């Protein structure tokens, strides 16, 4: 480089000459080196075959360490004892002959022996094959003793093998609930099983240890498959040396791991990657590096016996894929663990790209979302406007008055029909403006009904008087229904009104006609009765008067015909008796007056009576509610008369609630089954109650507390109820008002007759 820099400013011909000189120098240099510093020879003897999985790893590490320092030229060779594949004596003898022949012209400086059989072979053949070579060994069980170490060029190396106990300890720490551990340790050429049992003896107090001693691969895998959950497998070694099917222990580790239903831990570095989760292992790479470094030290002049024998370095190692497979959190492995085969995730592999892609996607997402939201809002608004326009157009063409209110109970829309009716503008009517048009007598009930229905979210119907554009108050029937958004949220009310004044007037007129008709018919009935009675009594009266006159004439004469007077007097007596007979017969006739009575559903009778009373109830702003028991037995009686009783009681209730403010006037009619198997009907009101009523006299004829009352209603009602076998009573309500109730016996047969008393003949509302 210094030459190159020096020639930077030189002329072109000089640059060419310099380049040629440099090329010649570069060609000459290696040969100069070779001549001055001859290459040294390192021979590595492996116990197993060249294709044994760990062999290649160790060999590569040794080579890397030997070439690390280029000041020493090294020829590195490798030979393979393969006493695990062939008969050990034959293998040993063959290799001895082979090396002797092959390396006869070479001076071997260092022999590296990998594994105990290789070290034994090297020490045994040392005198013949490697008389001056220093020995660097990797031994497991039989490290070189001190005599061996100092003999010849000396011996050093690494000692120590796989740590079964540490691996098992590690596995149990990661799987604390393990109950059984199945150990696979089978090696026909090694005293392995005993060694393993010895090392693991201490664990027998912690877990149940089971040794799978199956030489056959099929039976081994079958045993593995049968391992129960909650167990672990500790795979030490299993080599298959069946003819034509040579499987190395790591191959078997793969098969065992694949077959096992539980995690498998292995004790050898070469098993990591063959399906085991992990283990405390001697790193083969590390081992090769140390062997290479020690050899280099020796080549550099250090005596082998001066290099201390070191223990093999053990590290916890894991297969990242197996940790994932068994769901073991990689943060639980001990510190300093080596995790292999970790696959970088997408983020680790392509951090920049991923980040950029995420940013782009997010920006796009934000833009699209904003556009969508904007679009949706615009469509919603457009749709709402369209809906509103459609609603208004439909409402304005409807033949009824329509209003609409929001959740705040305030009205926000009235259709054209409404505005034409009231003669006001929409601006005047919205909110509570419409209420100004409601008649003063109706506004309280109207608002009470509206608010109560609103709070209960129920449909309502009410009638009230609404001022028309010409100032006339017209009765309207207003029906309101709750309305809901498409998502079911309550949105307020919509209602329609129709002018029912004409109908209502007709109803009132009809009702008045009914009342009049009933009064007239009652009077007619009375008149007929009286006329009939009069006719029958006048006959004997005429006879009495005529005969009495005859007597008077007879006794006034000078010679009275006493026989004739006597006959006349007898006729008078007879006629008097006849008159009494007439009266008696009429009494009897009424007493024995019988009406056919039928099985009745009392609830039907109540409903019919309410319909009849509806006009008066509305007129008086009295709300009527019912509490009718289901499945009541039938009662027997006269439908019309029981209705009459109910009408009387309702009329009493209406009169009683008159002092109560409008909107609170209330009558309740209930029906129920009594304890003595009868039916009870009660009519309650919240009126003035019975405080000013003479309870003793209230059911008697002509008793009344009303300025316009006749005092007949309750008397007749009681007569009717008693004729039906029941009893009418009145009670003061604890919270004000009165309750009139009557009970009726239930129907024993389909129909029967009711005996009537004469005063029952006179009926009617007081």
């Amino acid at each position, binding site marked *: 480089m210094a030459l190159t820099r020096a020639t930077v400013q030189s002329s072109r011909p000089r640059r060419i000459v310099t380049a040629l000189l440099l090329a010649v120098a570069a060609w000459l240099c290696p040969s100069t080196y070779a001549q001055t510093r001859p290459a040294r020879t390192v021979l590595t003897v492996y116990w197993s075959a060249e294709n044994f999985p760990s062999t290649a790893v160790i060999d590569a590490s040794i080579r890397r360490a030997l070439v690390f320092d280029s000041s020493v030229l090294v020829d590195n060779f490798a030979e393979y004892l393969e006493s695990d594949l062939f008969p050990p004596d034959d293998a040993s003898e063959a290799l001895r002959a082979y090396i002797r022949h092959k390396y006869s012209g070479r001076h071997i400086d260092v022999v590296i022996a990998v594994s105990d059989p290789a070290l034994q072979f090297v020490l045994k053949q040392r005198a013949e094959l490697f008389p001056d070579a220093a020995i660097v060994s990797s031994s497991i069980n039989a490290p070189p003793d001190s005599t061996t170490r100092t003999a010849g060029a000396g011996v050093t190396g690494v000692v120590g093998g796989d740590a079964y106990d540490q691996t098992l300890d590690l596995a149990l720490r990661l799987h604390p609930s393990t109950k059984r551990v199945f150990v696979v340790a089978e090696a026909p050429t090694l005293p392995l099983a005993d060694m393993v049992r010895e090392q693991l003896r201490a664990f027998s107090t912690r877990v149940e240890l089971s040794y799978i001693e199956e030489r056959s691969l099929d039976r081994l895998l079958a045993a593995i498959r049968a391992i129960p959950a909650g167990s672990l497998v500790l795979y030490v070694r299993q080599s298959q040396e069946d003819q034509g099917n040579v499987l190395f222990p790591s191959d078997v580790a793969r098969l065992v791991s694949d077959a096992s239903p539980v995690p498998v831990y292995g004790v050898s570095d070469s098993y990591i990657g063959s399906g085991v989760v992990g283990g405390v292992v001697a790193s083969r790479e590390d081992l090769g590096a140390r062997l290479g470094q020690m050899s280099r030290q020796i080549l550099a002049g250090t005596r082998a016996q001066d290099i201390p024998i070191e223990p093999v370095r053990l590290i916890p190692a894991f297969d990242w894929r197996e940790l994932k497979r068994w769901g073991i959190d990689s943060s639980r492995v001990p510190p300093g663990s080596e995790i292999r085969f970790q696959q970088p995730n997408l983020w680790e592999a392509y951090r920049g790209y991923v980040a950029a892609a995420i940013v782009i996607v997010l920006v796009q997402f934000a833009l699209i979302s904003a556009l969508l939201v904007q679009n949706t809002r615009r469509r919603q608004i457009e749709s709402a406007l369209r809906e509103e326009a459609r609603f208004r157009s439909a409402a304005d063409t409807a033949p009824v008055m329509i209003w609409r209110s929001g959740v705040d109970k305030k009205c926000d829309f009235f259709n054209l029909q409404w505005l034409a009716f009231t003669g006001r503008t929409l601006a005047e009517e919205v909110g509570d403006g419409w209420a100004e048009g409601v008649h003063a007598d109706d506004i309280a009930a109207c608002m009470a009904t509206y608010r109560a229905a609103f709070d209960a979210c129920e449909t309502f119907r009410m009638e009230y008087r609404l001022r028309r554009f010409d100032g006339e108050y017209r009765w309207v029937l207003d029906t309101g229904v709750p309305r809901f958004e498409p998502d079911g949220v309550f949105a307020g009310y919509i209602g329609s009104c129709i002018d029912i004044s004409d109908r209502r007037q007709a109803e009132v007129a009809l009702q008045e006609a009914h009342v009049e008709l009933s009064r007239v018919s009652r009077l007619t009935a009375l008149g007929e009765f009286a*006329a009939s009675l009069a006719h029958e009594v*006048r006959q004997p009266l*005429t*006879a009495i*008067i*005529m*005969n009495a006159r005859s007597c008077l*004439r007879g006794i006034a004469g000078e010679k009275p015909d006493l026989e004739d007077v006597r006959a*006349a007097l007898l006729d008078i007596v007879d006629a008097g008796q006849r008159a009494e007979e007439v009266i008696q017969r009429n009494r009897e006739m009424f007493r024995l007056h019988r009406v056919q009575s039928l099985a009745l559903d009392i609830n039907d009778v109540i409903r019919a009576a309410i319909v009849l009373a509806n006009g008066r109830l509305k007129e008086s702003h009295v709300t009527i509610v019912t509490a009718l028991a289901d499945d009541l037995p039938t009662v027997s009686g006269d439908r019309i008369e029981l209705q009459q009783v109910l009408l009387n009681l309702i009329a009493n209730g209406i009169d009683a609630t008159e002092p109560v403010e409008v909107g609170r006037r209330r009558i309740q009619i209930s029906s129920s089954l009594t304890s003595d198997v009868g039916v009870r009907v009660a009519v309650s009101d919240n009126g003035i109650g019975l405080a000013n009523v003479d309870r003793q006299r209230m059911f008697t004829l002509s008793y009344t507390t009303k300025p316009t009352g006749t005092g007949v209603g309750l008397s007749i009602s009681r007569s009717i109820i008693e004729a039906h076998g029941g009893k009418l009573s009145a009670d003061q309500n604890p919270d004000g008002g009165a309750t009139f109730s009557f009970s009726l016996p239930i129907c024993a047969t389909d129909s029967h007759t009711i005996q009537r008393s004469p005063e029952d003949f006179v009926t009617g509302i007081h």
Partner: protein
Amino acid sequence: MTGRQSPLTVVVVDDDERIRRAIGRLLRSHGHIVHVFDSAEAYLAGECRADCAILDIELPNISGLELSERLRANGRPMPVVFITAHDELHILAAVQQTRRPLLKKPIDEQELLDAIARAMNN
């Protein structure tokens, strides 16, 4: 009219036996001759000449009014006093058209004698 005047022949048609007997007894005490019948049919069957007829309006089958009409139609009109225990307007109106006296029961003595006199004066 008094009992001292010349005796009259009076027919009484009433379905009530007590009335027939009582009126008959009273008119006889005034010296009149009285024939009583319990129905229009009985009178028509045993028709006898009389100065005046006292007819109850409510007779079975043929009413007093109808009987009076029949007599007139047969060319034998007779003074008639109608009597009735009823006071319905339609009856009163029907009698009023005949322009004949009507007595409402109960009837007193003088009332009856005056009516007979009025009937005969018509």
